[in-house]
């Protein structure tokens, strides 16, 4: 029962990691940019919800929807205003730009809410579901439901719709997609918008469970990277599975080995996967013809 409870909690935590990893994966696969500022988009989503719920007095679900829309706009603006402009430069410029805008977002949050660790109203505060001795908390139920619906919608859109097939085409070959008339620049902006939206949803789900502070995104960035690495860079399914495995692994390591190791589980995963299976569970090795 102890192990089952740990696994259940780990799956709920892992679902958030999965969402963050998926959102990073969308940006990476769609634009080849590894977004080192992605954790701060999660934080921004959470803070926008806080702003709308606590300060503007809007209902939570309306605030959540509005936060996602605002983050889509922010994601598109980052792509068009910052990333697109440095396309011709070295690839490391993308990484530095992402780190820089992440810190700017963090700085803005600090400037506005600097001296407080902020609590969100408890919107998921319904009684836990008891299955024997197993506790399925209200938070976990909401996270499972929200992330589950979102993933089904995302995968249906990407793999089953015509828009999704266009996306896949651009992901496989930008030049080929451009030759058949697809607007690649608009596609990149859209991918940043989708990535930011998924990050915002992660923030929206996390906000009522934990407390808000400007550094909130940092740990989610590492967890997202670890999940992406485990699943295989660029694999959407892998990112989701990687997030879930990481969440469960953290709990089991904490429960059975040592709680001191929970914090470094993500780093251990990155080291082990890169050392033993660099392409992760579902990534494919890129064959280079010379």
């Amino acid at each position: 029962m102890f192990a089952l409870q740990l696994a259940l909690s780990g799956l709920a935590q892992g679902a958030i990691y999965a969402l963050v990893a998926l959102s990073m994966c969308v940006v990476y696969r769609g634009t080849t940019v590894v977004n080192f500022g992605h954790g701060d988009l999660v934080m921004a989503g959470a803070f926008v919800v806080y702003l709308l719920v606590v300060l503007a007095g809007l209902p939570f679900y309306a605030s959540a929807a509005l936060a996602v829309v605002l983050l889509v706009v922010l994601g598109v603006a980052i792509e068009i205003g910052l990333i697109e402009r440095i396309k011709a430069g070295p690839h490391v410029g993308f990484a530095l730009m992402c780190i820089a805008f992440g810190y700017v977002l963090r700085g803005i949050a600090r400037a506005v809410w600097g001296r407080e660790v902020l609590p969100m109203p408890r919107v998921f505060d319904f009684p836990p579901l008891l299955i024997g001795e197993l506790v399925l908390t209200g938070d976990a139920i909401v996270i499972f439901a929200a992330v589950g619906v979102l993933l089904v919608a995302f995968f249906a859109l990407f793999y089953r719709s015509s828009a999704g097939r266009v996306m896949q085409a651009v992901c496989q070959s930008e030049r080929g997609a451009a030759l058949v008339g697809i607007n690649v620049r608009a596609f990149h902006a859209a991918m940043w918008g989708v990535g930011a939206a998924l990050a915002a949803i992660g923030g929206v789900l996390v906000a009522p469970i934990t407390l808000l502070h400007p550094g909130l995104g940092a740990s989610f960035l590492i967890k997202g990277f670890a999940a992406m690495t485990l699943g295989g860079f660029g694999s959407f399914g892998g990112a989701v599975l990687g997030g879930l495995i990481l969440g469960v692994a953290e709990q089991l390591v904490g429960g059975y080995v040592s709680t001191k190791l929970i914090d470094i589980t993500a780093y251990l995963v990155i080291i082990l996967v890169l050392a033993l299976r660099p392409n992760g569970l579902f990534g494919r090795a890129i064959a280079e013809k010379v």
Partner: protein
Amino acid sequence: MKLFLSALACVLATTAAAEDGVTANSIKIGIMGPFTGNASSYSKAEIGLDAYYKWVNDQGGVNGRKIETVLEDYACDGAKGVAAVKKLIYQDKVFMLHGNSCSAVAMAIKPVVVESGVPWVIAHAANPAISAPPTKNIFHGVPVGKTMGVAMGQFVASKPGTSRVAVISHTDDWAKSYCGPANDFLASKNIKPVVEVAFERGQTDATAQTLKIKQANPDFVIACLYEAETAIFLKDAKKYGLNVPVMGTAGTDLENTLKRVGDLDTVANYYVPHMYADNLDGPRLKPFAEILKKYYPNESLTAFSLIAMGSAAAVVEALKRTGREPTREKLIAELDRTKDFDTHVLAGHITWSPTDRDGVKDVAVAGFVKGKPTVLKSWGKPL
């Protein structure tokens, strides 16, 4: 003769102004605090400190000089703390330093301050290693972690039937400074932890820790955690049905913890060391709360807000005793002559000497009684 006296006055005035941070009409005090970052609510202590010095100025200052405060932020970060304190000492040329929440930062800046010889009164950070063994220029103006750790242990042991204690803590020096003495005290009563789990700063889930503690079936939990992690642990404890009292540290307070967890039920069994002479809204603390309100009208009152005012009162008294020509040497000597000084804010009186700079040695405990924060002498016994 007139010319001689004028020249003498000039020489004396120059001498009086020779010490860094002292002019004919001001004394400059550097206040460093975590005004930003995720531990920034601790800086309420430094805000209260600044308010107190502003109030002193409105009462006429110290021996005709106004206190000029210079506030520096270090966001509870060691590297930023070192930069902030170097700026205060060598650029702003302050006469003395007062402040500092975040023990880890205090430990990082300690070598810089010791080398400079600038007097430093610690207003909030609780790690005993900051002021012990004694150095020439460092004075602790709040109870150290050891004092509070012992008080935590005493309170836990005062609950009848306590024999099984669980510990959840960060793995840093700050947490050890509370949990170590608490555990040592309990060990002296033959109570040893049945389980000890780590919960690191920045983690957002305490399920594994909570379940391990629940499995050990304790009578009491000691939680040496910062504010955010305390709230997360208390929420998880409620979720998983861990219904035992939790003894926290002075790094948290009841009012803010209640605000963070969102309902009284979750904090009803939460206790913290209480350094004040009264309840926060009690008559003895009212004048100090009004000082804060006067100079920082938008600042909410929490358990950190007034904590540095006690050591500020002691500093003002020592400065007065240095006379019209204060020097750092004189101030250090006068601080060392502070004996059994009642600050009217802190529960304990302040006593410093060259061989003992741990100034405050009495602490109570606070918990919710009938939904209201109440100061307690021991389990179930209000002060």
